[in-house]
């Protein structure tokens, strides 16, 4: 008798507990997410909406100008030159860093021992701040710096790197490719290790040489992840600011050759207090990046 009573009580209690535990936690989970959700509202949603609003107004009186700011940005030669510079520096940074990083990663992947050590070695530039790296490069690119020493050793004339638009851009490209290379290597290594060993074993039984294995197995298997790296690189490259700013200042000297899109936003927004125009420029940049992100998800889904 008493046994059944306690059993029933127990059952009731546990049902109650289940019920309450099913209702009460719902709220609890939102509390867990509170910091993130508050942050997103304050530092994401609000700024995005406010930026959109600002892109349609002009001046301190915030007079509505429709698409006037967008038209101004798209008609500005300075903007297009900044866009050209940004794309130019980015494409060469990627064309240098991705293949070089891929080949180095393949070689490291072939090692039986010492790979971990080399990974750390190659990644060091990427952990340092771009500001520190660029500071060192300002001295390396100096007319009497080490780079010119190499140039002269090879029998060429001294180059005053940061005084000519063309060579100044290449200064930034060298700096950016060097700084990014370690990242490319790490990502490639992770993807190389994901290729099944069975392919290589089967190929070597069939008598394929190591180069043939690399060309017919490794390369086709890596096309997808290389494409993703390329897109990530584009997205990062469009947002470039620090490297060009450090070598060329706010104006992107010499002759605006290092002026970037973000530099344009910075100069017009914080230098000229043209919040409307600068916001329109950021939205144009944002659209470019969204498009690239969309391609990125397409490629990721295709899993080539």
């Amino acid at each position, binding site marked *: 008798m008493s046994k059944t009573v306690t059993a029933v009580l127990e059952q009731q209690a546990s049902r109650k507990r289940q019920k309450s535990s099913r209702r009460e936690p719902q709220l609890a989970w939102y509390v867990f997410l509170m910091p993130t959700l508050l942050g997103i509202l304050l*530092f994401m949603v609000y700024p995005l909406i406010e930026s959109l609003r600002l892109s349609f107004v002009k001046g301190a009186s915030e007079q509505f100008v429709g698409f006037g700011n967008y038209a101004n940005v798209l008609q500005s030669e300075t903007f297009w030159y900044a866009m050209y510079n940004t794309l130019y520096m980015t494409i060469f940074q990627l064309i240098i860093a991705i293949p070089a990083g891929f080949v180095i990663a393949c070689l490291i992947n072939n090692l039986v021992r010492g790979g971990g050590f080399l990974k750390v070695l190659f990644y060091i530039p990427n952990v340092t701040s771009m500001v*520190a790296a660029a500071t060192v490069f300002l001295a390396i690119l100096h007319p009497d*710096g080490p780079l010119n020493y190499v140039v002269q050793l090879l029998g060429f004339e001294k180059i005053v790197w940061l005084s000519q638009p063309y060579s100044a851009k290449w200064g930034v490209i060298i700096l950016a490719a060097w700084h990014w290379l370690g990242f490319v290597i790490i990502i490639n290594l992770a993807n190389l290790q994901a290729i099944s060993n069975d392919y290589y074993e089967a190929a070597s039984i069939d008598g394929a040489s190591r180069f043939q294995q690399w060309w017919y197995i490794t390369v086709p298997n890596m096309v997808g992840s290389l494409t993703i790296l390329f897109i990530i690189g584009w997205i990062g490259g469009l947002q470039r600011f620090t490297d060009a700013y450090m070598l060329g200042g706010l104006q992107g000297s010499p002759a605006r050759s290092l002026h970037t899109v973000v530099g344009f936003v910075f100069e017009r*927004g914080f230098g000229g207090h043209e919040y409307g125009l600068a916001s329109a420029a950021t939205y144009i940049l944002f659209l470019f990046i969204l498009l690239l992100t969309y391609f990125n998800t397409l490629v990721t889904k295709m899993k080539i």
Partner: protein
Amino acid sequence: MRSNRKARKISDVLLFLFLFAVGIIMLYPFLWMISVSLERTANVSIPFPPRLIPEEFSWFNYKLVFENGALLTAYGNSLVIALFSVLLSVSSALLGGYAFSRGSFKGKRLLFFAVLATMMIPFEARLIPMFTMFNELDMINTKYPLIFPSVINAMGIVLAKQYFDNLPEGLRESAKIDGAGEFKIFFHIFAPLTGPITATLGILSFQDSWNSFLWPLVVINDQHLKTVPLFLSSFSTENGGRLAGVTMATAGMSILPILLVFLFFQKYIIRSIALSGLKGE
């Protein structure tokens, strides 16, 4: 067979030596930086031809940097900012990651999608209103704008969620039967198990905070509030090619903390970067 294995071993050593040489070339800018910073006469002119062993070795440039003290002030600012940023971003990532891993609540999928979406929004798209907002709050030239926004840590939430997903479900069930609430379960059972993921998240957000440049450049112009990259940037652009010795010493000192953190925790960092495949700049 044996000679084959021997040949393999030799080619392996040769390959390692070759890659090591390439790695040294990669690190040459930093090695050269150290050598210039230790060169007594480097402030007059950049040592030419370049050399890795200083001709006139001295700590003179470092002494100048420390006696000036501005770098130490910047160090203090950067450390305080990084400490609070790490605290904020790691705790919000752990709490959020746990909720998305173990929670069942309305709108879970939608909210997770919203968190992921924040990764696609470039900082520049929010730059101007972020400035005007903190300006209206009278927080320009304070440390707050450099700390508060770190509360959004989407990549951290994804990494933390993966980590919690891999912990056994039984942990939660037994605690629930004992009648523990969700907070108690999290803080008493799960939180003590989060050592490795906390380390990873902490290092990544320390690196972000320590190296960030554009946002500090916008919100700080007070000399005494400059972070390390801000100080280094103005110092090196003001002096250009002159004072190479002091500039290189300052650059070296600015790299040191992040380099030490990296060398100590390189396994966590490299693994998480490979895992995420993404990293903000």
